[in-house]
């Protein structure tokens, strides 16, 4: 019989090391690039060097006769393949036809124009240089505000105003709120374009099996099932003969929450050449043709009473769309609008979004997707309001928080916040950082002409995305649990992870529910031929939605185990605990593993019960979850160089119940790193001609380990009532809380100079210039320039 050990040890809530890490840190994980197949060919994509141009002609003769080249494909050949889809439906949404290869026109630098297939990757790359494309260069526009101006070049000639969509939302009575306000503060706030920069670039291996009419597609994605549905549709294949496998995925941050042209293109190539084909995105390609994040220009107005009570918020939001809509592009700014009241008790909001086409790569979801932009906006505005009213930024927040007895709380944007105690993390963070003492120190330093700032951000966010009516492709998640005859447990999750540690956390959940050891559990994901349909991992949803589906599948199995246990023990009153079914009267017990064997041996079955132990659940969440927290950042600024040094970073996050504090800390650290990246260094810059001038890591300032501050990560715990695990989600919290805390801190430091807002990134150059000018204006210190 089974040799599996039963354990009474529990795992949920403990700092369990990630079970996926050994293969990752020993370099033995299998990524798309690691896949080799007999007869494999290699594809290289020729991309447009122009942001806008008409293609007069393409000469592929030289490339076709180059050594090793099998074929060169152009847009006219792939016209029959379906368009790259936009998954969002909204009234008046303008959706340009997004073919997988350009046909007569290119719309951004990096636009795929031709694909070269050769028996060797280097030969394909060399042959791509031999393709001669005659472009008629057209005027381009890369800045969304310029694209809206009269006379701007039209990105898509059929829409000369460059407007991709508009969206309006009104809640409460904004006009009345503003009319009754004692003070209105206005500010233009930019949330710059960012490159998501997953460590693993995208990549696809397509393997067409002609005899079976089957396409196997290996792709680095967050959403294998959705990719299968959509790519099968684009290629006219049957969904059950299309298998998508996401092997190890080296980061996504939203950039792989998408369906890309290359996924269908490689399927097409493999069908054409009847051989497997591999395409691996280069880092330079990744810069220009994987989606970017953010790209907001926001115009905020906040109305308040003299005592600091916020009455209403207005927002005009310009979203830089890029040249096309990718899967969720138009949805992202709508998430910003949903989040715009933050965690403050105001029932009057008005938002107007205009999505603008530009000759740039499309924007889409990037860690936080819409919520960092909104949080940055509201948290900057609250600080500016506090400054205007000469109130302490902590005090104005305490005054306006939704009170903890008001939950569930309906927002003016139509959400229902599940649970919260917003004052708790701020109180804790203020204590941890020693706020009163720091303010005293700041006053002393100011007398010495030194710049020290304390920045607070108290964020809320929308997680566990989400109820299906509110998501474009279904917001449920699925889980299957199979208990083998030996009692070993296999979990199949539809929430395909890409670094979130579900192989650990999901095993923790199952181990505690079934009373088995972690080592007895395997978590499988990412293969549509193995795993039941699932949605994927994004929007801090995997544990809250996928984990809940798992929880319910486990309950089904526990009930069945108890039935079998009761039968075997000849009892009617049993409990399942510690991996044993125990007869409550006699105390006799049967180990879980023995029962598992009996369910398959099926010598005897309980009434109305089938053999075997397997359960699948699709769980539809009744609501989002709403985590929150307070981040406090203390900065010292070098008055001579403009260098910002982060002295303290205190993060108090409330993500509900914590299944694994180690993984939660990791999420906070990674999130903060990306928040700091946006706040201090990162910026995707297009020049006026639509050339991406930050096209390499020497020009795009990604945070490095040595630039990271020590993050003091703490928590409060307000369980979510939305799911039985009480979890909320934490994948994006660090990013969302971070950037406004940093900018608030730096603005606070420079406030004696009259600085009231600085747009990100806060590069030393920007700060130095500000110091130089403002010092001259104020005349308090010798200006350096």
């Amino acid at each position, binding site marked *: 019989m089974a040799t599996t050990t039963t354990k009474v040890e529990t795992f949920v809530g403990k700092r369990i090391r990630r079970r996926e890490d050994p293969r990752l840190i020993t370099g033995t994980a299998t990524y798309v690039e690691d896949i080799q197949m007999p007869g494999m060919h290699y594809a290289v994509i020729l991309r447009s*060097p*122009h*942001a806008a141009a008409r293609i007069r002609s393409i000469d592929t003769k030289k490339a076709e006769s180059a050594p090793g080249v099998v074929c060169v494909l152009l847009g006219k050949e792939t016209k029959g393949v379906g368009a790259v889809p936009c998954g969002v439906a909204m009234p008046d949404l303008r959706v340009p036809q997004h073919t997988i290869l350009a046909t007569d026109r290119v719309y951004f*630098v990096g636009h795929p124009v031709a694909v070269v297939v050769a028996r060797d990757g280097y030969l394909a790359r060399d042959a*791509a*240089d031999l393709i001669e494309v005659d472009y008629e*260069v057209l005027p381009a526009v890369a800045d969304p505000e310029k694209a809206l101006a009269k006379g701007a070049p039209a990105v898509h000639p059929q829409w000369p105003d460059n407007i991709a969509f508009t969206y309006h939302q009104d809640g409460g009575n904004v006009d009345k709120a503003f009319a009754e306000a004692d003070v209105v503060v206005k500010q233009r706030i930019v949330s710059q374009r960012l490159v998501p920069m997953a460590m693993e670039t995208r990549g696809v291996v397509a393997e067409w099996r002609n005899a079976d009419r089957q396409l196997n597609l290996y792709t680095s994605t967050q959403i294998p099932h959705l990719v299968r549905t959509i790519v099968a549709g684009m290629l006219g294949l049957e969904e059950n003969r299309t298998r998508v496998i996401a092997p190890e995925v080296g980061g996504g941050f939203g950039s792989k929450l998408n369906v890309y042209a290359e996924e269908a293109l490689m399927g097409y190539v493999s069908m054409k050449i009847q051989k497997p084909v591999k395409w691996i995105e280069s880092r*330079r390609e990744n*810069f*220009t043709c994987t989606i970017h994040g953010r790209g907001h220009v926001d115009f905020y107005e906040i109305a308040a009473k003299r005592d600091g009570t916020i009455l209403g918020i207005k927002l005009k939001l310009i979203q830089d769309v890029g040249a096309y809509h990718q899967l969720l592009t138009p949805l992202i700014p709508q998430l910003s609008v949903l989040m715009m009241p933050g965690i403050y008790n105001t029932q009057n909001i008005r938002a107007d979004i205009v999505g603008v086409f530009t000759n740039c790569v499309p924007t889409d979801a990037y860690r936080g997707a819409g919520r960092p932009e909104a949080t940055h906006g509201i948290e900057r505005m609250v600080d500016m309001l506090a400054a205007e009213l000469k109130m302490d930024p902590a005090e104005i927040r305490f005054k306006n928080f939704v009170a903890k007895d008001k939950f569930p709380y309906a927002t003016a944007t139509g959400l229902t916040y599940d649970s919260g105690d917003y004052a708790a993390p701020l109180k804790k963070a203020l204590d941890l950082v020693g706020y009163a003492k720091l303010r005293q120190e700041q006053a002393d330093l100011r007398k010495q002409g030194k710049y020290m700032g304390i920045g607070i951000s108290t964020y809320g966010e929308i997680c566990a995305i989400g109820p299906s009516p509110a998501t474009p492709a279904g917001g449920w998640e699925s889980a299957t649990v199979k208990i083998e005859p030996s009692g070993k447990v296999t979990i199949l999750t539809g929430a395909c992870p890409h670094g979130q540690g579900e192989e650990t956390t999901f095993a923790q959940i199952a181990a505690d529910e079934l009373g088995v050891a972690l080592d007895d559990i395997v978590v499988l994901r990412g293969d549509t031929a193995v795993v039941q349909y699932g949605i994927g991992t994004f929007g801090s949803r995997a544990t809250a939605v996928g984990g809940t589906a798992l929880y319910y599948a486990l309950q089904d199995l526990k009930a069945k185990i108890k039935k079998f246990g009761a039968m075997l023990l000849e009892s009617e009153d049993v409990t399942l605990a510690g991996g044993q079914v125990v007869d409550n009267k006699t105390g006799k017990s049967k180990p879980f593993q023995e029962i598992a064997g009996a369910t398959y041996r099926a010598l005897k079955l309980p009434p109305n019960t089938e053999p075997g132990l397997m359960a699948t659940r699709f769980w539809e969440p009744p609501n989002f979850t709403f985590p929150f927290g307070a981040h406090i950042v203390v900065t010292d600024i070098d008055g001579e160089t403009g260098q910002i040094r982060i002295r303290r970073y205190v993060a108090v996050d409330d993500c509900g119940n914590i299944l694994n504090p180690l993984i939660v800390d990791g999420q906070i650290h990674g999130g903060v790193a990306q928040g700091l990246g946006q706040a201090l260094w990162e910026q995707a810059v297009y*020049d006026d*001609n639509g*050339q*991406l*001038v*930050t*096209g*390499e890591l*020497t*020009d795009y300032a990604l945070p490095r380990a040595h630039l990271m501050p020590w993050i003091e990560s703490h928590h409060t715990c307000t369980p979510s009532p939305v799911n039985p695990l009480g979890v909320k989600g934490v994948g994006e919290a660090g990013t969302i809380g971070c950037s406004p805390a940093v900018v608030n801190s730096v603005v606070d430091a420079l406030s004696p100079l009259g600085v009231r807002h600085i747009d990100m990134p806060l590069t030393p150059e920007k700060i130095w210039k500000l110091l130089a000018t403002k010092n001259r204006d104020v005349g308090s210190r010798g200006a350096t320039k």
Partner: protein
Amino acid sequence: MKISGSYTLPVAPERAFQILQDPAILAQAMPGCESLEKIGPDEYRMKMKVLLAALSGQFEGKVRIADQAPPTSFRLIVEGSGRIGFLKGDGLLKLLPRYTDYTGPGAEARTSTEVSTLVSYEGDAQVGGTMAAVGQRLIDGTAKMMIKKFFDKLAGLARNLTW
């Protein structure tokens, strides 16, 4: 990107004007130039190799001369593309006689009374593709270096030519 600067050539403006439009001389003077052939009046096809830090690649393009006002000015229009991107440039070259002492290459062979030519140039250049994405920080410096190399070579050639 704006490009501007000036250089003194050790010949009189009339001669400088000729040299600056002589494909045989230009082909020798332009760094990386592999060929320059006349394809029409005042229009040339050019092949050149460009080195930009880690990037290198062959460019093919056209050079056109316009708005000629001998010997004082002409306009140069360059368009080229290659595997590392494309470049477009449009510049005005002005030639002014200089009677002051010349100190550039070949100075030792000249007397101070000879006329030299101050060539000043001003124009716009646009680069795209990989070159723009990867080499942005280096383009300015590289362009300046290439222009200087070009004029140094040209001055040397001008000195050695016997007319």
